[in-house]
């Protein structure tokens, strides 16, 4: 520019004054809003980053709420399980285990029937404690079927059967005697191995416990009671054919025989039920997002299970299900039900109803109760670990939320000292520009002409 003119100078001044005012306005807005930027366009990178952090913050906040609910659920479940553990096995004198010990060690057996009632009552208490573990409308030990009661009794009295979500918890039977290759041992109707029956004639023992060969019978000094031929009641019934025939298995623990076909039918049906129980125990899950990075596998709707938390608590995982190799129930409540029934059926004098077997069964079941109790302990410890994990995760979510909050505020919010300094500087510049404007407008040669 070779020539500065009044209008040119004024134009420049106006433009610069406006810039200065804009800068002042921006600095003022910055102080008033407390934000480093007030629109996306002012700083797109920061805005995008801030939105990302804010989104994570909101996710973490809702995960925190979710985690809080889950934690409360597990704490409630833990308390319920604590009570159940107390009912089953502790030093408390009212516990099942103490009662069982009393039943086993009672020298006179006078209180067995009453004790049986107590044990049955304890079994009911365990069921009630399990079913009573609720959070809101949900039954905590119903797995993913939280709106339905987990444990129910079907049938009455000593025949009542405990079901979990409609499935008998003692599914898996009948259990029969097996060979070393885990194959059922085929027996005759009397429970004997047909291969051992080499004599020509056999008689059936009257108590149904087996057969005796004619040779042994004849040779016996004291003839065992045998079934007599209905056509000639003076003669023992020849059951050679039955004794040699197979087609039966020997049930455990009763020792009774069951027709092979019937066994197959019952086993298939029971295995299905057992498979359902196994599915519930091993595979059924109810996942919730508590900040573990909820995500599905690529090209699939399958959840990455480690990215969510399974909150399905199955009552059978704690109390046990199925039957063992002796044919005894694994479920604590079923064991207690059986033991209570055995005690309850004792006579007033404390004698077992079936002295030959009941005492033995009671003792065996007492050991099984110990095993089931150990399992309950293990699950209880696992639940403790879960509650601890949830607690830690909950605290971590809180920390994460705080960190995220700090991060996006750091991006969005101005350092007030810096903002006020900038404002003061902008105001200073603006004031200077105004001052300059006054002198621009007043000075020209015209003012000096005489």
């Amino acid at each position, binding site marked *: 520019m070779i020539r500065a003119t009044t209008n*040119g100078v004024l134009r420049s001044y106006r433009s610069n004054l406006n810039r200065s005012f804009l800068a002042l306005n921006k600095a003022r807005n910055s102080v008033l809003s407390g934000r480093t930027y007030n629109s996306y366009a002012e700083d797109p990178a920061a805005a995008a980053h801030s939105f990302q952090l804010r989104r994570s913050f909101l996710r973490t906040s809702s995960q925190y709420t979710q985690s809080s609910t889950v934690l409360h659920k597990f704490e409630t479940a833990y308390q319920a399980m604590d009570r159940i553990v107390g009912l089953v096995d502790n030093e408390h004198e009212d516990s099942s285990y103490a009662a069982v010990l009393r039943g086993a060690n009672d020298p006179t057996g006078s209180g067995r029937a009453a004790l049986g009632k107590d044990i049955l009552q304890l079994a009911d208490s365990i069921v009630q404690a399990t079913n009573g573990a609720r959070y809101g409308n949900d039954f905590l030990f119903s797995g993913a079927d*939280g709106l339905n009661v987990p444990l129910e009794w079907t049938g009455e009295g000593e025949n009542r059967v405990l079901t979990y979500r409609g499935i008998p918890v003692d599914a898996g039977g009948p259990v029969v005697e097996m060979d070393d290759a885990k194959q059922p041992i085929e027996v005759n109707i009397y429970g004997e191995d047909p291969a051992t029956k080499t004599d020509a004639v056999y008689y059936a023992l009257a108590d149904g416990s087996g057969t005796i060969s004619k040779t042994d019978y004849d040779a016996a000094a004291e003839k065992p009671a045998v079934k007599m031929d209905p056509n000639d009641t003076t003669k023992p019934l020849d059951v050679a054919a039955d004794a040699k025939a197979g087609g039966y298995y020997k049930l455990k623990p009763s020792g009774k025989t069951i027709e092979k076909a019937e066994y197959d039918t019952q086993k298939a049906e029971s295995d299905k039920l057992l498979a359902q129980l196994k599915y519930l125990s091993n595979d059924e899950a109810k996942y919730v997002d508590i900040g573990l990075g909820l995500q599905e596998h690529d090209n699939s709707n399958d959840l990455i299970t480690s990215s969510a938390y399974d909150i399905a608590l199955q009552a059978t995982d704690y109390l046990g299900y199925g039957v063992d190799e002796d044919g005894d129930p694994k479920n604590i409540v079923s064991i207690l039900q059986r033991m209570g029934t055995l005690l309850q059926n004792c006579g007033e004098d404390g004698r077992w109803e079936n002295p030959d077997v009941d005492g033995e069964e009671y003792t065996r079941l007492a050991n099984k109760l110990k095993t089931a109790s150990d399992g309950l302990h293990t699950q209880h410890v696992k639940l403790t670990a879960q509650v601890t994990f949830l607690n830690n995760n909950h605290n971590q979510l809180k920390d994460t939320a705080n960190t995220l909050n700090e991060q996006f505020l750091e991006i969005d919010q101005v350092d007030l000292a810096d903002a006020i300094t900038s404002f003061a500087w902008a105001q200073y510049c603006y004031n200077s520009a105004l001052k300059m404007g006054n002198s621009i407008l007043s000075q020209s040669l015209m003012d000096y*002409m005489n």
Partner: protein
Amino acid sequence: MSSVSTFGTFTTARLGIYAAQKGLQITGNNISNINTRGYTRQVLDQISLRTGGSDRYASQYDVKVGNGALPVGVSQIRDPYLDIRYRGEMSSVGALDTKLNILDSIASILDEVARGDDEMGVIEAQFSDLYKALQHLDDSTGQEEFDTQVQSSAKALVTLFNTYASRLEKEKQNTVKRFEQEIETVNKLLTNIKELNSSIRKSDIHGDNTLEQRDERNRLLDELSQYMKIDVVYSMEDIGAGQMVEKLTVKLAGANPQPDTLDPRTDRAVLVDGVHATQLVLGDAADNYSITLAGLTDVKSRPMDNHSTTRTEISEAAFNAAMKALQDLAADPDKPNNVTVDAANGTKTVDDLMGYTYTTKYIKQAGNPTKFYKIETTHAEAVADGIKLDDNDIRGGLQAYREMLTESGEFTTSDTIANVDESAATKRGFPYYQKALDLLANQFAKVMNEANQGYLMNENGEYLNAKLEVLKDASGNPITESNVVKTKSQLGEWKRLLAQKGVKDGNDYKLDGDNYVDENGKPITDSAGNVLTKSGIDDANKQLEEWETALKDNGVAMGKPLFSNNGDGNDTEGITAANISISKDWSTGAAKIIASFVQASGFDHIATTDSSNITHMLALMDKKMDYFPTDMVGDAANEGSMFHGSFQEMLTNLQSVMANDQRSTSIQLNNYYTSSLDLDTQRDSVSSVDLNDEAMNLMQYQKSYAAACRLMTTVDEVLDKLINSTGIVGR
């Protein structure tokens, strides 16, 4: 004349007084107009007057002196080159200013920075709220009130989509109105320039320099340059009788850079031709808001007779060479049909078949000496329906309006790129933001609707029939959810790969045998390293179709759409941000969110709090997915994905695109504005009134006036001496 007349010097003094007076008058005019917009400072043109010619008897001792100063005119001090540069910058300023204004109006809707509760955004925060509601439902599955909470949150989300879409459309309509007003303004400017031209022409003819009118015309041209890029040409027009007057022509600068492929008349788009000017006619939305230049008319709306003739004197040799060339051309058998030659009369006529005829005539004019001329005549047919400008013919503010109203970026069709604007895919206006928002709403609705509809399956993901038996395909294999999802996903990836790397071949892509190949002829492979084959894709499609048919026929369908295109129905076709609604079934309770499709084997019901599908929905809320423009615009040129991310990331991306466009436009505008300001100041340095200058002029003319008066006094005294005091000795 060698001697001075007695009173001649009085005239010199008088002329000096006159000149100084005129100078003061002009200075006064300059000072008065210091604040007049567009005023160009004026200066007095004066010459030194010298009367007489050569004396008959000249004396070598004689001294010739001038007769004083003579004002001959008033002129303006202006630099045309600065005008050209300034107007060039102003067209960019106009374009960017308009674009930024419109982007700001879009941002006022889409920009969620510092908005919403705790400044968490609006739609952005609502997505998070929906996620939270789904989480609650996940936790409290089977309890209806939590389904209602999800529905309420989703309703708020769709309402926000509706609001954004409606505000965008309203803003677009406002922009159309503003555009129409701007067209009106431009038309008024063109009319005013035409009228000024007419007035200046008349004044020119009468010898008036009409400087103030020229200032006003320059101001109007400056204003016009903000709306479109213009070329301003000043030429002299022969009006006969040897009189020449100035003629102003204004053309669209750089219009139609591809005359071979587009209407070539548009590169001759003339806005103002002397006393004639055009008017702009704006097309409607269906016509892409195209602009048509109406025929040129004068102030009385009479159409222009489009003849122009130039005459150039040429040498005899050039004349002879031209005549020879004409004869050769006449004899040439390959002479184009649109060329007519009359070699005898030295005439060649070329019809460009597009409304213009060019005639060249060579003439020999007898005389001493003989002169040779080349006369070129251009005749333009009257354009009854005007000239429709091509997409990129017009620049400046008007073009910015057009682009912001029509450009759809990634949603641009192949046809538009091929026939309208090859760079259309990178320009984003209202249609882009509207369609991108539509795509987000559509994708969200589609994904959530798909998630809420399915078929009953067992715990292994095998679909079941009504008898709870596993459904099997023709090969006897169970139909599983994982296979169906995997196949769909695979087909999606292949489609994307073909769109990105394939070479279009009709409706398909280029094949080498059975393999799809890229532009280098190499087979295209997917992420698993498999070569994309036609048979593979056909088989996958066939398989998927078979499964879907089996499921439709025998599967146990569950769930209904959650979102529809109308709150009064359940139609999911064509969901956009404007119409996305909660489906009637969901809002009336006939449909619920399906918590799970899994009924485990042996059970008679789906577990009451199994929420595997809600967890799936939660995962979908954060799942990164592709967004295909073809979902909204079937024939979009970009068949690939325009973005890969979650719903909220897509929303952020939409805002980022807008914000970056705003930012870059703002920076460019600032640059151009600063340049234009500099240029304007430079123009001021040349043309503007400066008080110091004028003060100097005042003093200068005052002094010269005083000096001329003193001269007169001196001459008077001298003559007084001569007349009254000379020759009286001894009296």
